[in-house]
Structures are given as structure tokens and as C-alpha cells.
């Protein structure tokens, strides 16, 4: 599947806004992404959010990604 990226995260993928990754859960695809682009690890350590079909997950790495989902990596968001 493809994971899409935006903002400053693209810098860690050499400017690529989509990366082909594999895995069944959010944790799996993030591992796959790091294997392809190790520079993204720094951002994962700072915190990211993952949108699966528009639903934003900040913390759940065990979230299963349904077949055909759109997956979007976002910077972690702070609230007030």
C-alpha cells in the first residue's frame, strides 16, 4: 500500500510525498517506512499521527488498516 506524507515529513523521504510500504497495522507500516527512509525515525520519535481513511490516530500502533485504505502520515498535533 501507499502512505502519503506532507509538510516537513517529506524532507525525510527525499521529497517524496508517497512511499510504498507494507504491513497490516499502523505499527507495521511505520516500521516499513523507516526501513525505506531511516531519516523519518527522528520524526516518529518526536511523534506523528496517522490518518486512515480520514480518521486520525495519534497513538494506536495496533490499529488494523483495512484493505484499500488511504493512509496519510501527519505531524503530531498539540492541543489546548
Amino acid at each position, binding site marked *: 500500500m501507499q502512505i502519503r506524507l506532507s*509538510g*516537513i515529513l517529506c*524532507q525525510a523521504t527525499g521529497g517524496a510525498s508517497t512511499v510504498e510500504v507494507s504491513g497490516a497495522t499502523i505499527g507495521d507500516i511505520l516500521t516499513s517506512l523507516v526501513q525505506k527512509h531511516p531519516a523519518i525515525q527522528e520524526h516518529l520519535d*518526536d511523534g506523528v499521527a496517522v490518518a486512515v481513511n480520514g*480518521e*486520525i490516530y*495519534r497513538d494506536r500502533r495496533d490499529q488494523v488498516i483495512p484493505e484499500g485504505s488511504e493512509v496519510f502520515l*501527519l505531524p503530531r498535533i498539540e*492541543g*489546548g
Partner: protein
Amino acid sequence: MPYETDYTNQKFSVIGNRVNRPDGVDKVTGRARYGADASAAGQLVGKILRSPHAHALIKKIDTSKAEKLPGVKAIVTGDDFPDFTGGNRSLMDTLENCMARGRALYDGHAVAAVAAVDAQTANEALKLIKVTYKKLPHVTDVDEAMKPSAPVVHDWIRTAGIEPAPTTASNISQRNEFGHGDIDVGFAEADVIIEKTFKTEQTHQGYIEPHACLATLGPDGSGELWVTTQGHFTFRNMCASLLGLDVAKLKVTSSEIGGGFGGKTHVWMEPVALQLARKSNRPVKLVMTREEVFKATGPTSSTSVDVKIGAKKNGRITAASAELRYQSGAFPGMWGMLGAMTSFACYDLKHVKSVGYDVLCNRPKVAAYRAPSAPMAAFGVESVIDLLAAELKMDPVEFRIKNAAKKGTRASYGPIYGPIGIGPTLEAVKNHPHMKKRLGKNQGRGVACGFWFNFGGQTCTDLNIGIDGSVNLTVGTVDVGGSRASLALIAAEELGVDYDQVRVTIGDTSSLGHNDTTEGSRGTFSSGMATIFAARNAIDVMKQRAADTWGIPVEQVVWEEGVARAKGRQNSNLPPLSLKEIAAKSPRTGGPIAGHNEVVADGAGVSFASHICDVEVDPETGSTRVIRYTVVQDAGKAIHPDYVEGQFQGGAAQGIGWALNEEYIYGEDGTLQNAGFLDYRIPVCSDLPFIDTEILEIPNPNHPYGVRGVGETSIVPPLAAIGNAVSNAVGVRMTHVPMSPPRILKAIEDAQ
């Protein structure tokens, strides 16, 4: 055992009632204990010496005279805070913000602190500390700070998000771009294009309770912190990291909180209090003055924003772009990025681009303020939306409805939306009686939309049932807006007991697993979810006790309306067992009955609101009075409607102050000129009309009760709604917040 988080559309018997809040009597009688209300035997008074300069090298700090003053027990400076951050830049920024390390970066930056036997001695000691400064050039304006000639706040900053990576320092910590399509193509298709620049000044959350704490820290590294905070678990982790402590040895208890709105999500002086306690081996109480709160905690960004939107004559937007420059204070932040992400989130746009810049200045470290960064972006975007509607001779609400995002729209920040509520809020605005009220002379009406993300996060709760059947629910999310009432309602609903039977306590950090801070509108969403599951966990225990009592398999027991019932004809002779009966027998049936849950509560769902505002502007003085205000927002299921409405009204009230009056004013020397409520005017009751509310209950599919966060979104539209109303009243487009009387008069004069 994991429980399903999906919305189930269950019928409620308790949820939705407007019950009395459990903390109400304590608060109105003065019995509630806030940050400054704790004391300990032998406690000292902590005071902080702060930089009088906007930017200065600290050449020397001589504490010798202060140390000799009788009654002074400890003095700390930057040298007393060794680096335990392990190279974590964000942690080091926090540490350096709590206590300067060689340079004072803004007016009010802490440079030393004293613990003494009383306040008089501590203040005397501060006067005896001699700091030798060398003043450095400073910058406090966001646009000035971006210029290549500007004084650089940190020489290690290289702008992230730019290719090739810069090799020289700048005040721009990062650039973030979001969007899709091709805006050049989109603007080429437009019949009308409007482009404007907007500015918003820095504001403070303005919580009434100043920061306060009582700290103890012994030589063995064990300590306690009583503190006003939105997140005591986060404070524990942060203080332990900064001071080299074991997390488990620091117990943090959250006091009642007199407002936070994002400003109490970060540590400011708590590590200083702990370090003073460690050095003196005595408890240290540290309470900020209002001046310190303004100068040395975390206000929101001042901003400078360019917005350009194009549309066809038929009212369809063809392209939108924005450049958003957010001042983050003396340390890097993510505020420009959030502004860029939220700016166009309300609209369905084929071609969109937003670029956010985070910019350092010699001002205090910016913190979150209720839907951080979104109100300033909305001010620019919603103003241009109104201008476009006027140019196209369309009703501004119809124009928004025509272009509103919906299920399947690609959000300007990236993902495709699921079911969302912007359309229904706009339809509700269109049909609201407020829109039909005739306006008088010098009056104007404005409408604006707003978006915020919301989130959930790590949550842990305990639910204990006493032998009399009363219920004690312990949660770890600080109650900033009435969540104890909401959570008691949820526990009562699940267990089938009366609301009054449930007491909710905010547990300290030693009593529960980690809970994320109450931010991101997460308190009732996430602790509500954990409460449901903890109650179901306790029900499982009670069903087993009933089954054991009856001598039947637990599978034959159901829980209905607060009682265990044995299912099936073969069990028809078994009378139901109530929660109270099961609880009374618990010592002899297996011991205490408790439920527990830890959950990562994700799936909070994005949130939208639309506001209507009527103002009257005095053309002689430029003074603005808000005469009517209506908030429409999607709340998901409103657990306790009073508190949902309270959040809506509170956000609008803060937005009114921000839009019309509030402003950090810096002098030429870079020092803050109005660090007090006399000169920084927040709205009081007499400034505000009754703020009407309409709750839309569109269920969140990712919460068993359909709950969404409600606390933040209501502050997003007010700047723009009021800006549009004032502009319509005076006939001149307002582009600078706050729209204070001098600014309104100047805008009128300039137009003439």
C-alpha cells in the same frame, strides 16, 4: 479484555441530564483547593528573578550577598540544572526556558531563584542578586524576525523543510507546506480573486488562577509536587526528565484548576521549585504573580497571514492559498504548521496550498491556546471568504455552504474526510432565528466557520464499588471543564445506578497508569471511553459474583438496569441481585469489586463550528459592543449539555476578548508594557451578551456513546465572525486583530 469502541446507538437513561456539578459547592464556598492552597510543615517561599532585558548575555550572576541574608535557604541559577536531556533538543528548550543558561532570551526570562523563610526575605534576596548583563539586539515582530538582517535568537537554528537545507542560522525554525492540486491552474480558472494580508497580536489564555505549586524533593530523589496543571502525569515525566529523577519517585497531584486553555500543558517554574526544594531540603511553595504569568508563561502566537482565494461567478472556489507566519517566542514551535493545516480545512478545494512558517522572536515561549493556531488562520480565510461572497453578490452563508467540505472531500491538510459536520452547522446557521433579526444603525453581522482536529490519547481509570453500593471512579485526566460530572453520568449509565451514587476523583500519579494531558478536547472523550470500559469490567465481576451466589454459569447472568438477572426458565425462581446487594456481600464472595481500564483512545474525530455575531460600533469612539452571538457546533453526543454549552460559550467569550481588546504590547526596548489585567483587558460579564448555543449531536462512530471533543473548536470562528461583523458595521475591511477602538478609527479614517 478489550472492549469495542464503535458507536452502538444505545438508549440512555442518565446521559444527557443537566445534573449539578459535584465540585460546584466546593468552588462557590471557597473549600476547593487550588494550586496556591496547599501548605506543608516547614515550607519555604520561592521567588524568581527575571531578566529586565529582551535579549542579553548573562556575563555573571553574583549570589553571595543574597546567600548571606538570614532566612535564605537556597538559591539556584542555570548552573544548578545539569543537562539530563540526553541530547533531546525539545527537553533542553524547556529546561532553558525554565531557567536561562547564559543568555536571557526575553523580558521576564528566569535567571535565578530563591527559597527563603518568607516572601519578604525572598524578595529581599532577589534584590541582592547581582546579574551582569550585556544587552544584545532583539526582535519582537514576526515579520521583522524573518528578515535576513534580523537579530538571530538562536545560532543553531537551521530552517527545516527547505531544500537544499540552509547552512546559516535564521529565526525561521521550520517551513511546512500542505495542499493538493495546482493553484496556478485554479487561479487561472477564477473570475474573481481576492488577496489580503492580516495581522493578529499576541494574546494570553488569561486563566484567572496563576501558576502555583508546592514541591518537596529529598536527597534520595523522592519528591512530591502539588500543582495547578492540565496534565500531572506529563508534568511528572517532564520534571523527572529535566531533573534526573526516577519517574516513579515523583508523585504529582493536580489541584483544582482555575483555567488552563492550553497554558497549563507545559512546565514553567515547577522544575525550579523542585530544585529549590532539593537544594534546601525543605518544601518550597512557588506562586507566580500576574505579571510573571504574562511575561514568563506561554501565550499564543502573534501572526502575519496572506490569504488569496479565487472563485467562479457561479460561486465555486477554484483555488486558495495562504502563507502563514507565526511567532513562536524564543524557542521553536509547531504553530505555523498548525495554522497551515487548519486554514482551509472547512472547504472542498480542488487546488489549495498553505505554507506555514514558525518564527522565533524575543518573546516568551508560545504555548497552546485552545485549538492552537486555528483562530488566526480562520480570521484571514473567513474574512476573504466574506469579501469573495460580497464581490460575487452571494449570501455569505450560501457561499460557504456551496463550498463546504463533506464526506469524501480531500482535506487541505491531506487525508480524505469521513462523515463531518461543517455542512450541518452552516445549514443550522442559515435557518437560525438570529439570521432573521433586523440590524440597526451602526450595526453589522458576521458569520464564520472553524475547524479543529481533537484527539484522545493514553487513558487509565479505576472504578471501585464500596460495600454500600456507592461508586468511586478515579480518573487521571484533570477536570478543566466539568468532566467529573460527565464521567459520573457515564459510570451511572453503565452500572444502572443514580448519578449521586458516583463520586469522581482525579487520581495522583502514583494511583493510576499514565494519562495524557487534558488537551485536544480529550477529557470526556477519552476518560469517558475508559470509564465505560472500567464499568463494564466491574459489571463482569458482579455478574460472576451473582453466578457464584446462585450456583449457575456466568453465561446465564445478564446485567440490566443496575441488577444481575439469571436468564432462562430454569432460573426463573432466582430473584435479581442489585448492585447494592452484591456489593454488601462482596467481603464474603471474593473481596472488593473493582473495574479497571487502560486504553489509547484514538478516533476522536475532527470538529467544526459556525458562529453568528452582531456588533454595534460607535463611529465616534471606535468602541465595539457585541450585541448578539450564536454558536453552532457538532458535539457528538452531549453527555452533560450544560457543560457542552459552557464550552461553546467560553470559547466565544475568549474569542470576543481576543478579537476586540487583548494584545501584548511591546516597547521599543523589547519589554512588555501591559503585563497586568488593568492594561491587558479581558472581557468581563458586562462586556458580553448572552451567548446562544445550538448543539448538533452527530454521533462520533469511534466512541461507544458517540462522543466528540467540544472544548476547543468554539474559539476558532470568533475572530473572523467579529471581524466580518465589524467590517460590515463600519463599511471598512478590518485586517488587524484586536479590533480595538484606535484601530477601528484609523481604519475608518484611512478609508475616508
